[in-house]
């Protein structure tokens, strides 16, 4: 790769320049997102914004795996859902403070990701997707069959929001909002950092051409496992936070449709773009919420949007914008 670049110096300089301007654009975008996060609770309903943020983080985590690792997992609901169960259970029954409950949920999801990932990355493409789906269904059945832990189909209800660090009460929506916004922003920055680190470069290389990356001396399966665990952990972070926000954890979160929903969010927003999943999550969650009055038309509208998305802008909303301005987003 270095050989190619140095043999064509003008292009390399041009690339460096676009990289530079892209970095500047990204920095500005991060500032814009931060400003939006501050303004949002005053404009929109805070609980709704928190829901969008949780799902956006979930979609970001998923996109890290699919967009940058090239691995289509169809079982991300398992990490999201199990983390939300763990966080809800420990906050309610062990009386853990919310930050500990969330951390514990995240850790369990990462551990689950390690086990599932180690099994799944041995296969590729559709087989990988099917194995992750099968393992996630096992997690679903575990949740269904252990009502003592998960509350069966009633879920874990009335989870206390508790006090952050044992001091700040999160009962008020606004107070909780800042915590969720901070978690979201932290997750986003972490994912951005991962993507643009040498580790992320290798992941992208493996995504684009695995045999070549192996021939260059990279241990592809270790990289894949690492990105899988990171993605599972971040999905868990989103799920665990959601449990505290809604004060409940239920089977919906571990069911396979949740895995499908996150794929939909990522595709609508823009696969392999940094900011796409946020837009995708906002669109899907807003539809679920604001079209709720339309009744059965929600599913039809969702379907139409998905079809339109696939037919008209396959790169997703943000992907299309990135193409227009000719800069990676």
């Amino acid at each position, binding site marked *: 790769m270095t050989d190619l670049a140095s043999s064509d110096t003008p292009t390399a300089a041009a690339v460096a320049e676009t990289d530079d301007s892209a970095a500047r654009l990204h920095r500005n975008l991060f500032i814009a997102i931060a400003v939006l996060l501050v303004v949002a609770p005053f404009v929109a*309903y805070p*609980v*709704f914004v928190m*829901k969008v943020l949780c799902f956006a983080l979930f979609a970001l985590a998923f996109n890290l795996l699919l967009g940058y690792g090239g691995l289509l997992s169809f079982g991300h609901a398992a990490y999201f859902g199990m983390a939300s169960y763990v966080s809800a259970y420990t906050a309610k029954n062990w009386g853990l403070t919310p930050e500990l409950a969330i951390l514990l949920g995240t850790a369990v999801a990462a551990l689950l990701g390690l086990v599932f990932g180690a099994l799944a990355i041995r296969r590729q493409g559709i087989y990988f997707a099917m194995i992750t789906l099968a393992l996630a269904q096992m997690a679903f059945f575990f949740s*269904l*069959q252990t*009502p003592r832990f998960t*509350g*069966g*189909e*009633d*879920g874990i*209800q*009335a989870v206390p929001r508790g006090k952050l660090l044992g001091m700040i009460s999160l009962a008020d*929506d606004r107070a909780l909002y800042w915590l969720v916004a901070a978690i979201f922003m932290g997750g986003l920055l972490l994912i951005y950092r991962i993507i643009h680190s040498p580790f992320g470069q290798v992941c992208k290389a493996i995504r684009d051409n695995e045999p070549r990356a192996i021939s260059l001396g990279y241990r592809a399966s270790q990289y894949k496992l690492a990105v899988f665990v990171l993605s599972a952990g971040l999905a868990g972070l989103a799920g665990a936070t*959601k449990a505290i926000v*809604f*004060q*409940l954890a*239920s*089977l*919906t*979160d571990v069911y396979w449709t949740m895995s499908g929903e996150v794929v939909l969010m990522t595709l609508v927003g823009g696969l392999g773009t940094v900011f796409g999943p946020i837009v995708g999550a906002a669109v899907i969650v807003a539809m*679920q*919420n604001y079209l*709720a*009055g*339309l*009744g*059965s*038309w*929600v*599913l039809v509208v969702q379907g139409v949007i998905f079809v339109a998305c696939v037919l008209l802008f396959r790169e997703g909303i943000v992907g299309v914008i990135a193409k227009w301005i000719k800069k990676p987003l």
Partner: protein
Amino acid sequence: MNLKTLLAATALGALMAAPALAQQISVKAGVLNDRSGIYADLSGEGSVIAARLAVEDFKAAEKGIKVEIVSADHQNKPDVGSTITRQWYDQDGVDLILDVPTSSVALAVSQITKDKNKILINSGAGTSDLTGKACSPNTVHWTYDTYALAQGTGGAMVKAGGDSWFFLTADYAFGHSLERDTSAVVTKAGGKVVGAVRTPFPGTDFSSFLLQAQASKAKVIGLANAGGDLTNSVKQASEFGITQGGQKLAGLLTFASDVHALGLQAAQGLVLTESFYWDRDDGTRAFSERFAKLNGGKKPTMVQAGVYSGLLHYLKAVEAAKSKDSAVVMAKMKEMPTDDPLFGKGSIRVNGRKMHSMYLYEVKKPSESKGPWDYYKQIAVLSGEEAFQPLAETGCPLVK
């Protein structure tokens, strides 16, 4: 003279206007249910129609109460339901929520309703936890619960001669609890449980389980399942000719909408418990006629009837209390006896349990049915006291 008349008229006008102004209460009711999934036929738009009819019959406008009805689809997802509920209470000024099928959503909504001090009149959900360990001073559970269904189908069946049972149980917590509750009732009533089989959930092929049930020679096969599992197992049972062979099928969570979807050919002989059937008496028939006209010919289910009856009682309580303060209205609702053409006379217990009769029905044979929607014949009636869980056993902290 003219001036005097004018003055008198003004004074009279002012006198009349004053109480009218004082009484002007506006109430916003939210119907939150499943409008696109498996419970859409059971609740859905029909519940909204029922709520509108309740407002119409109450003659709210004449009584100085302005009622607005909003509705939304919770898609059977607790997080969607909980976001809508919070938004309704915090932003949209909703005073009470009606219906809410799906136990997980109902429990979440009940919890938020308690936190925000509003009112939930639940008609659609089955879990008896709503008036048990998860009971709330802000929740009334109107139409039915799994305990009452077990009492009706289990207890009354045994009395009617079905004293040996075999269960076909969907293998998850809900199925297990249906089986456990009904077995207890059957045994207590003097019946015997000869066996049970757990079926994978969700299931499509029930043939081997049905053959097992048939071979058990039990008089009653209890179907401890719901939704798709129920329709599949009933259809396959009819293919095996189980009811023609003399065994009875008992649906432990079966609604008129399920029977309608199955058709009489498949559903005939199925025994089930409901708290409302459109063709019970003149009152229910008159209501159902009006309802069907607005709902594309479909008769109301018990859940939709419960929404009507619950909202009507709430409005009566608001009128009597001259206030819409949640605590005041709830106290009035529990104090006043309930009475309407659909559920007859009843009352609300301290734990929020609405008391009324439950009915054991058997689905007619196609030859017995006189027309569309003529589905049930009544086998037994249980009074509220017989059907619902005794207060002391509920484990509700509100019961002292």
